[in-house]
């Protein structure tokens, strides 16, 4: 059985491994002692040991003959017939990986999306498009999507398949990986090729982004990963770029879904619950009046976030109490908090200072909000916020 081995001759009990262990599984009793109940074999301690006294004892893995797998695939997700932006991001990273391996890049696409959309995938870097142009794949179902992708992969044996970490991708891709009996790494933010070993080096955040992990799928193929949306840039468009389009006729059993769609109800996000929001854009006294909350709303909408406010803005009657962040309002801890025209009274700070990233936009360089801000912008919010909105609109395309 696999375990972390302490090499007694080398260990001095320095404790570097104790600090490095994310799971609290190591203590020092003259030498490092591993609590095997807690140890997850993550290897952080092995990395941290300055003396090389820790070793992950090798295990025999039942792998596959990896040499038979070649090429990089990306899954080009479509929704209601339209290829989503994440597909172009994947083509960008996929192109780089394929070039590093000296292999072809294939885009896999399902459903009747039309020749133009297929050609666009080639313009964006695909050498080849594997197109299951079947009406029954227009609507996303886990059974059909996982089934057809697995069927293709079994037949063609790519070494890497990437998919967007979207609602669709994170649902069916694990199912496909399980069908193929291979490894899958979720929500990657970094992908590189270890050229020596022809391996995909996958990096992803864990523990709410507090730590990063590098993950390999050494002995199984394909190496599968979902990629976080908006982390990678979209592939540049090269009009007229040439490539091959291969139509794929899926096996009938893979076109039968056990889930049936009764209806789709479109919902345009309006108000996001403050406490649950990943992104909050807040306005304060600096806005000067209720009409200027329109700026805050626009910025929030662009970011898919919620609108917050300081007490001053609420007390002035510019925005309802339900938006108030702070001691008497909501306590929030989003991934991103953008404070516009908020000076940062203690009562406000206690309600938001545990946010992951705080951006402060304020005229007064002495404003206390800058002390907690990850990024501070000293300036007129009526200039900075519109510039930011412009920039984000361009980014959305």
């Amino acid at each position, binding site marked *: *059985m696999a*375990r972390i081995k302490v090499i007694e001759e080398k260990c001095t009990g320095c404790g570097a491994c104790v*600090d*490095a262990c*994310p799971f609290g599984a190591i203590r020092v009793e003259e030498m490092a002692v591993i609590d*095997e*109940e807690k140890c*997850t*074999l*993550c*290897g952080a301690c092995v990395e941290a040991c300055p003396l090389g006294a820790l070793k992950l004892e090798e295990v025999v*893995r*039942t792998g596959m003959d990896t040499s038979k797998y070649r090429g990089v695939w990306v899954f080009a997700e479509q929704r209601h017939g339209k290829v989503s932006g994440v597909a172009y991001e994947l083509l960008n990273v996929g192109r780089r990986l394929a070039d590093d391996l000296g292999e072809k890049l294939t885009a896999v696409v399902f459903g009747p999306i039309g020749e133009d959309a297929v050609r666009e995938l080639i313009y964006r870097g695909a050498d080849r498009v594997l197109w299951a142009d079947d009406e029954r794949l227009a609507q996303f179902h*886990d*059974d059909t999507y996982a089934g057809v992708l697995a069927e293709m992969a079994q037949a063609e044996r790519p070494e890497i398949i990437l998919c967007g970490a979207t*609602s669709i991708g*994170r*649902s069916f891709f*694990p199912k496909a*990986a399980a069908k193929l*009996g291979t*490894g*899958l790494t*979720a929500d990657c933010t970094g992908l590189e090729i270890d050229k020596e070993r022809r391996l995909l080096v996958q990096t992803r*955040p*864990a523990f*709410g982004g*507090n*730590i990063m992990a*590098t*993950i*390999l*799928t050494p002995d*199984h193929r394909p190496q599968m990963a979902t990629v976080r949306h*908006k982390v990678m840039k979209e592939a540049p468009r090269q009009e007229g770029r040439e490539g091959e389009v291969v139509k794929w006729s899926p096996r009938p059993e893979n076109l039968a879904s056990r*889930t*049936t*769609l*009764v*209806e*789709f*109800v479109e*919902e345009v996000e309006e108000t996001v619950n403050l406490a*649950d929001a990943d*992104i909050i854009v807040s306005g304060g006294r600096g806005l000067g009046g209720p009409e200027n909350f329109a700026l805050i709303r626009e910025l929030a909408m662009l970011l898919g976030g919620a609108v917050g406010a300081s007490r001053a803005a609420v007390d002035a009657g510019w925005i309802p109490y339900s938006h108030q962040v702070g001691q008497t309002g909501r306590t929030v801890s989003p991934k*991103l908090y953008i404070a516009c025209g908020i000076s940062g009274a203690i009562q406000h700070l206690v309600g938001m200072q*545990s946010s*992951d990233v*705080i951006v402060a936009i304020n005229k007064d360089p002495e404003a206390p909000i*800058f002390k*907690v*801000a*990850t*990024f*501070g912008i*000293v300036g007129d919010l009526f200039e*900075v916020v519109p*510039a*930011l909105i412009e*920039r984000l609109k361009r980014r959305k395309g």
Partner: protein
Amino acid sequence: MDIVVCIKQVPETTEVKIDPQTKTLVREGIPGIVNPFDMYAIEEGLRLKERYGGKVKVLTMGPPQAEDALREALAMGADEAVLLSDKALAGSDTLATSYALSMAVRKLGYDLVICGKQAVDGDTAQVGPEMAEHLGVPFVAWVRKVEEVSDGKIKVQRLMDDGYEVLEMPLPALITVVKEINEPRLPSLRGKMRARKAQIPVWTVEDIGADPSRVGLEGSPTQVVRVFTPERRAGGEILQGEPEEVADKLVEKLEAMGVI
């Protein structure tokens, strides 16, 4: 209806902080809690039982102390709990974990399996869908409402980025639920007393009839080769320049950090 809810014990991540000097996780005194998303799964299981009758069985895989998570579920009202615990399971990735859990679920017997959408420590959201594949049952992820169960079918709403889809599938099936689905109840005193006294069976790899080569590190295709602390900019970086310039800089930085 027999409902199996799969839960995970996780460190209370909101309390996980990085030591600015050593750049490592400060984890002293971090209590183990039930993965918050699994609380919605437990609650939904209990509500479905209240609507349609049957039993709610909770299952977790983990070290012996993961039993606390099961007791919490029992205190909320679950009927039975099973701990899948075996040193041979250490180092399991999502494929191996989902395989082991699916074997335990089979042994428990079920009409519906409910999982939280993801665990907050690993954030992979893979174990649910992979279990569905191992079990060979239909599944729907991101369920925000169970509309009804009737005639051996379940009708659910799946939350998508642009709205929601109403889907129907035959039982047995598996769903993963999102937080919009309900508000988990607090435990009751009588529930806690019952939970305290409950005997929780511990199952091993052998008990569930799993293939030892498909669990643990051996059965895991993925391998964590390195864990490290992300580079963090010290707080208080002031961005300077014209509005357009700072807007560009800010968006770039936020993109690089993966927050937008």
